[in-house]
């Protein structure tokens, strides 16, 4: 039995032996990615800023662009406790308290010169607003375009109200993708190379297969993965490096490690008491504290919705080199954040069954009404219509001022306490004669 299995469940922080090779490789990939922007040895490649939801990475990559995701830069700042300084600076520029933390972190950081502890964030040569479902995001990209004098490409993605994308929506998106291709040809002076796009898409597909294999390990009992807290680390390659061989290779390492965990009995916790589904953006500023609130109760997240914001690959979608533009359009339409609430509910209800989750924890964030609005109704629906114990808690993903540890802990303690109690009562009733 490994050290991890015999370690007390309530010990603080993340067990280092639980997160082994894959975590080390992920760190290396992050360092290399940001480090390359500061390199003086290589000629600078053009940089495009893009949003994670429904991103068009493959097309940009086929033109030799480096893609930067300000949301991911912002979450890296938050997890390293560097977001507040940027947010306060943005507020001093006039951005209000209620403006999204991602936006304020990024605009504050940009205005302060773009220097972070993990690297220098490069200036954009092009802004691609790949998710139009959030009006604040649209304004964010407009502000960046004005600030840098960089061209802005607005990708208009219709909201998904049905599980299968409509042909007219796909056609609408494909026509916009061709507009983007023409813009990129003009800006780079390079002709579009369909074979190069297909090659990139094939790499994406390979990474998507590996990522899905990792996520589905949460179906095992006990789960060898932490589908929320651990997946957050592994979202970097699927979102930022997708389309490169490095991303696909990364998941080979991850999945080998997961297989080793099962073989060695090395699980996220010594005892998996509760299997939970987590919905919502994490409180990055207090990520370890929040994780400890789960660990204390023997709760392992076996499935989560947030790691799917970069694509619902586990629901069957893959980028397809044989249908390059159509599959990119389907990908953008199918982004988790682009799904209507009835569709999101269905996904969550399916996950509860597939992953045998005992309960759902919803973490709402003050910053984002577009992601969070509706989570109160989701909570009521899960409890009353689905009979799934559900807890709703709220803080923020970027702004540490909104994370109240005592209040959150109290709610989580009470929730798990009641689950434990109900389980004990049910066991006693089952054991009673007659």
């Amino acid at each position, binding site marked *: 039995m490994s050290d991890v299995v015999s370690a007390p469940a309530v010990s603080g922080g993340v067990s280092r032996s639980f997160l082994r090779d894959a975590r080390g490789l992920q760190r290396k990939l992050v360092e290399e990615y940001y480090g390359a922007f500061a390199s003086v040895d290589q000629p600078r490649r053009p940089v495009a800023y893009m949003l994670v939801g429904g991103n068009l990475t493959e097309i940009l990559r086929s033109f030799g662009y480096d893609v930067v995701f300000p949301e991911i830069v912002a979450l890296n700042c938050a997890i390293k406790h560097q977001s507040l300084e940027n947010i306060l600076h943005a507020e001093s520029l006039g951005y209000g308290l209620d403006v999204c933390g991602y936006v304020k972190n990024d605009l504050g950081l940009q205005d302060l010169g773009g220097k972070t502890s993990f690297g220098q964030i490069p200036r954009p040569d092009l802004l691609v607003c790949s998710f139009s479902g959030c009006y604040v995001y649209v304004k964010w990209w407009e502000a960046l375009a004005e600030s840098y004098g960089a061209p802005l490409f607005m990708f208009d993605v219709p909201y998904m109200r049905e599980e299968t994308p409509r042909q007219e929506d796909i056609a609408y998106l494909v026509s916009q993708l061709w507009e983007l291709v023409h813009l990129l040809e003009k800006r780079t002076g390079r002709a579009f190379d369909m074979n190069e796009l297909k090659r990139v898409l094939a790499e994406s597909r390979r990474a998507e297969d590996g990522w899905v294999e990792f996520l589905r390990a949460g179906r095992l009992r006990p789960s060898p993965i932490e589908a929320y807290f651990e997946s957050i680390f592994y979202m970097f390659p699927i979102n930022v490096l997708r389309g490169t061989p490095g991303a696909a290779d990364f998941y080979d390492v991850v999945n080998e490690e997961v297989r080793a965990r099962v073989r060695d009995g090395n699980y996220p916790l010594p005892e998996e008491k509760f299997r939970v589904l987590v919905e919502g953006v994490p409180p990055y500023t207090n990520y370890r504290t929040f994780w400890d609130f789960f660990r204390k109760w023997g709760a392992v997240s076996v499935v989560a919705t947030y790691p799917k914001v970069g694509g619902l690959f586990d629901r069957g979608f893959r980028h397809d080199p044989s249908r390059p533009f159509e599959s990119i359009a389907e990908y953008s339409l199918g982004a988790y954040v682009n799904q209507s609430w009835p569709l999101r509910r269905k996904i969550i209800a399916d996950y509860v069954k597939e992953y045998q989750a005992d309960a759902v924890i919803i973490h709402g964030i003050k910053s984002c009404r577009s992601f969070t609005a509706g989570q109160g109704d989701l909570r*009521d629906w899960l*409890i009353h219509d689905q009979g799934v114990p559900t807890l709703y808690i709220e803080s923020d993903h970027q702004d540490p001022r909104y994370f109240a540890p*005592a*209040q959150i802990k109290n709610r989580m*303690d*009470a929730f798990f*306490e009641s689950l434990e*109690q109900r389980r004990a009562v049910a066991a*006693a009733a089952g054991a009673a004669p007659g």
Partner: protein
Amino acid sequence: MTAVVAGVDIGSTTAKCVVLGEDSRILGKSLSVVGVDIVKDAERALEAALADAHLSRPEVSFITGTGYGRYKVYFGQLVVTEISCHARGANFLFPGTRLVVDIGGQDTKAIRIDDKGEVVDFAMNDKCAAGTGRFLDVCANALGYDVGEIGPLSLQARRAVKVTSTCTVFAESEVTSYVSRGKDPKDILAGLHASIANRTLSLMQRVGVEPEVTFTGGVSQNEGMVHALHRRLGVPVNVSPLSQYLGALGAALHGRERLSGGAA
């Protein structure tokens, strides 16, 4: 072994302790104001309840801590959240309870429970003390009353004013403004109580209003608040002189369950 158990509830404003005998009879209880040294406050609360019960410390078999200061009840053997404890305490005193409304110093909670006193769902006020005991303290102070006086006075109102604010600090300004406009303090107080009842109703609706409703926590001793809640809900509200102790009582009951081999 004498199965005397105790529950110590360290809230944001007061410490409560209940000592329970073998037959689940309350042998002693205490209520004291919480200061800065929570560890000592917890010890004092236990000592006072033991003195009330004419018992000594070794005679207590099991102690459970609850409330925000529960982790400071170092001498206890079990820690349970006040949400589970109020649920259990309300079920003990009023077995027909399906919804517990706990209004304490800085928290308001609506807790839906089943027939065994187990928590089914709960909702709490978030990051704001509006609608809590502290809210009443501040407003009583602004009107020059002791918080203990305002409940009965609110019942003498002729025409309650509308207190629109949902913020403790702004409510104080609103009260001052009404005073300067010559409004009767009783009407202002009735408005304040109605404002809290409205706010509490919103929490209760989040978990589902189902009779019987049992009112717990320090504010349950305020008859003006009981009246305002009853009026807003349209159903009777269970309340008892012991309502303020239900967290501590529930803690003691959880302790008894653990002692007898059940899951607390």
